[in-house]
């Protein structure tokens, strides 16, 4: 990590790195001049009063993700187009909750936007404090980098600029304990006041099927239904970095994870974010999925990362992965909500899709979607476009919140079809089954959940797709190998896949699931499947 320390910073805000000695503090207010301390912590903080400066942000020119002029070898224009939105709004009035390991809320580029007393620490020894600050420099730098990308203050003569540089910050360090209850608490805390919940974390990117526990799902549902006075909390999550989690020794090919293998992001109500590099193309670690909503810039194959806030009041220029892309989309959403606070969580997803910039236009993965849109399993609907999103949000007529969302459930199909072994016969081994949706009152789909059960001796062999009545194909699962014993990637037992790919389509008609065994040596059966369709 390359850190840039700004001369003169100490004059603005003194952050002292000192040994901790007071044994911790669980008070909800900071003791005199000491925000957080503890005998096992490496860091503590001393906040001093300083004059508020105004002036250009000196690192703004390095922030190619905001305005890509071709610096560092990038392609001009492959950015968030954030500057085009700023004449309309900088995110004022919108609270963004950053859920992460810790956030240095005293950072001089973050503290001007901090909502005093609204953050929470879950960390043992600091639990209940409103200062979820880092405890060790080696482990706790993630959330500070994330927060800067969302809302680092503009025009304060220091450092960087966030996408929504006048939005308000609250921080929850729920990853510091990683208890289910703390995660659920953070995802529902102050849901009438917080608009966006920013999450650059998730399941391991290892090709395994990882479910989301009931506590997580219940928290998300609660926020969608009751958050923001019924307009719904907006949950933004990273799609994952599993583009090459393992190399097959037999073929020397990367094994690719899929966002649909992560139970946190394969459900309705989550804005799932992918990454593109400074040329607007998919980086080597990119993880595809039908559940992807939009992408945002991040690191690529060259060591060009993203410039943002770092610990001890400094900055870094190499922040990377979908962790960097996700807060950019959270920032875009904050701009949208600032421009039109009446938007529901459903509106936000649709506007993001409709306003996205179609990057990498020659990629063969772009597929026609309803309403003249295009979808790509690597890119969702494209790269978030702040200018277009704010413009569309400003005149948007709401489709409603959770209360008006319609759902249609298909009957459970139990084809119980044998799945011939792939590879060995040298020809297609695909098996298909169809079901018909009739009498469903959804003319415009917003999300589809597909539940799939197969008994197979190696489920990682299976490629799974579903085709809609409009002949649009969602690629739900790719074949891969995983580390571990037996059915190492995990069995498909009523596994939920999610798809954004059918946005705007009608629900009624024949849907077809196709399962293909892609590798020799294992067989099984296509047991059952069903659909749950959401829309209006």
């Amino acid at each position, binding site marked *: *990590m390359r850190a840039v320390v700004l001369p003169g910073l100490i004059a603005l805000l003194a952050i002292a790195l000192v040994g901790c000695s007071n044994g911790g503090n669980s008070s909800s207010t900071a003791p005199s001049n000491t925000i957080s301390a503890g*005998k096992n*912590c490496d860091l503590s903080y001393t906040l001093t009063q300083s004059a508020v400066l105004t002036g250009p942000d000196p690192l703004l020119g390095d922030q190619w993700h905001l305005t890509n002029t071709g610096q560092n070898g990038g392609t001009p224009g492959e950015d968030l187009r954030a500057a085009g939105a700023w004449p309309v709004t900088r995110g004022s009035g919108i609270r963004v909750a950053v859920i992460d*390991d810790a956030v240095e809320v005293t950072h001089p580029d973050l503290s001007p936007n901090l909502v005093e007393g609204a953050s929470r620490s879950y960390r*043992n*020894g600091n639990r209940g404090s409103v200062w979820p600050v880092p405890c*060790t420099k080696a*482990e706790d730098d993630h959330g500070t980098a994330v927060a800067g990308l969302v809302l680092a203050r503009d025009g304060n003569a220091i450092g960087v600029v966030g996408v929504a540089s006048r939005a308000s910050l609250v921080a929850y360090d729920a*990853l510091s*304990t*990683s*208890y*289910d*209850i703390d*995660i*659920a*608490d953070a995802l*529902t805390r102050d849901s009438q006041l917080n608009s966006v919940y920013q999450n650059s*974390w998730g*399941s391991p*990117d*290892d090709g395994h099927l990882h*479910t989301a526990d*009931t*506590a997580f799902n*219940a*928290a998300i549902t609660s926020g969608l239904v*009751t958050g923001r006075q019924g307009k719904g909390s907006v949950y933004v999550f*990273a799609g*994952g*970095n599993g*583009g*090459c989690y*393992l*190399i097959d020794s*037999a073929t*020397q090919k*990367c*094994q*690719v994870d899929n966002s649909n293998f992560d139970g946190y992001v394969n459900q309705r109500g989550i804005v799932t974010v992918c990454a593109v590099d400074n040329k607007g193309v998919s*980086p*080597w*670690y990119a993880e*595809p999925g039908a559940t992807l909503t939009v992408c945002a810039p991040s*690191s690529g*194959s*060259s*060591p*060009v990362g993203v410039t943002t806030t770092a610990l001890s009041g400094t900055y870094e220029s190499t922040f*990377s*992965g*979908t962790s960097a892309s*996700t807060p950019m989309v959270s920032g875009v959403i904050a701009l949208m909500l600032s421009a039109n606070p009446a938007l529901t969580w459903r509106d936000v997803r649709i506007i993001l899709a409709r306003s996205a910039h179609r990057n990498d236009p020659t990629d063969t993965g772009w597929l026609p979607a309803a309403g003249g849109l295009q979808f790509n399993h690597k890119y969702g609907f494209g790269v978030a476009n702040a200018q277009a999103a704010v413009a569309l949000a400003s005149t948007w007529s709401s489709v409603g919140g959770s209360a008006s969302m319609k759902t249609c459930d298909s009957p459970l199909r139990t084809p119980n079809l044998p799945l011939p072994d792939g590879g060995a016969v040298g020809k297609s081994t695909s098996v298909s089954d169809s079901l018909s949706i009739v009498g469903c009152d959804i003319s415009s789909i917003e999300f589809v959940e597909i539940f799939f059960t197969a008994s197979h001796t*190696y489920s990682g062999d299976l490629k799974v797709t579903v085709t809609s009545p409009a002949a649009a194909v969602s690629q739900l699962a790719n074949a*891969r190998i995983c*580390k*571990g*014993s*037996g059915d*190492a990637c995990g069995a498909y037992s009523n596994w939920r896949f999610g798809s954004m790919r059918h946005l705007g389509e009608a629900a009624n008609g024949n849907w077809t699931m196709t399962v293909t065994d892609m590798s020799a040596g294992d067989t099984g059966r296509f047991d059952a499947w069903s659909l749950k369709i959401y829309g209006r």
Partner: protein
Amino acid sequence: MAADRTPPHDAARMRAPVAIARLAAVFAALTGAGVVALLAVASTALAQPAPGPLDPSRIETASKRSSVAIKSVQPTHVWHDGTSARMLTLDETLEAHFPGGLPPQGHVLRPAGSTDRAAAAQVSPVLRDESGRPRGLPGGVVVVLKTPMDEAAARALIGQAGAVALQALSDRLWLVQGPIGLGSLTLANQLQADGRFESAQPNWWMPRTRK
């Protein structure tokens, strides 16, 4: 899908802890003795994986079912994730330490038997789920009510089931008192079987990946 590409080797960040943690996790899932020392070194990384993409130079190579010696493991415990019964396997090589005091993150997992007796009440066994991810029991049960209720009604309902309500997260989501360790798993399964609630699950600790 197998990508026809090789990862770059000039990534900006080196992430040795991730590779160590993954190796350790795999070994811990498969064997008993012989990995304690490695796990002791890697325990920090296991508890909190390093963020960002994997260091390309450290991506492991493996083949289907042949990457490591396999020791078959049978489920030892069950928990209820809503209506789904999910299997768990006791990892005899590790324990999870949940002190109420100060240790910062990253020191949850320890080699089994490394905690002194005085702190034994702060220790949970480590259980691995279907994906091999370690889970610990820091105490408490997360209950989802069948319908929204005000606080008094929810506390009464939970009390009728023989449990103590601690904290409401929403009008349906509650934290119920439970001990560190397997006692919370037992209580969660009892509350699930009770039928008064939509679901009851242990308040799990498990590592989440910063992306």
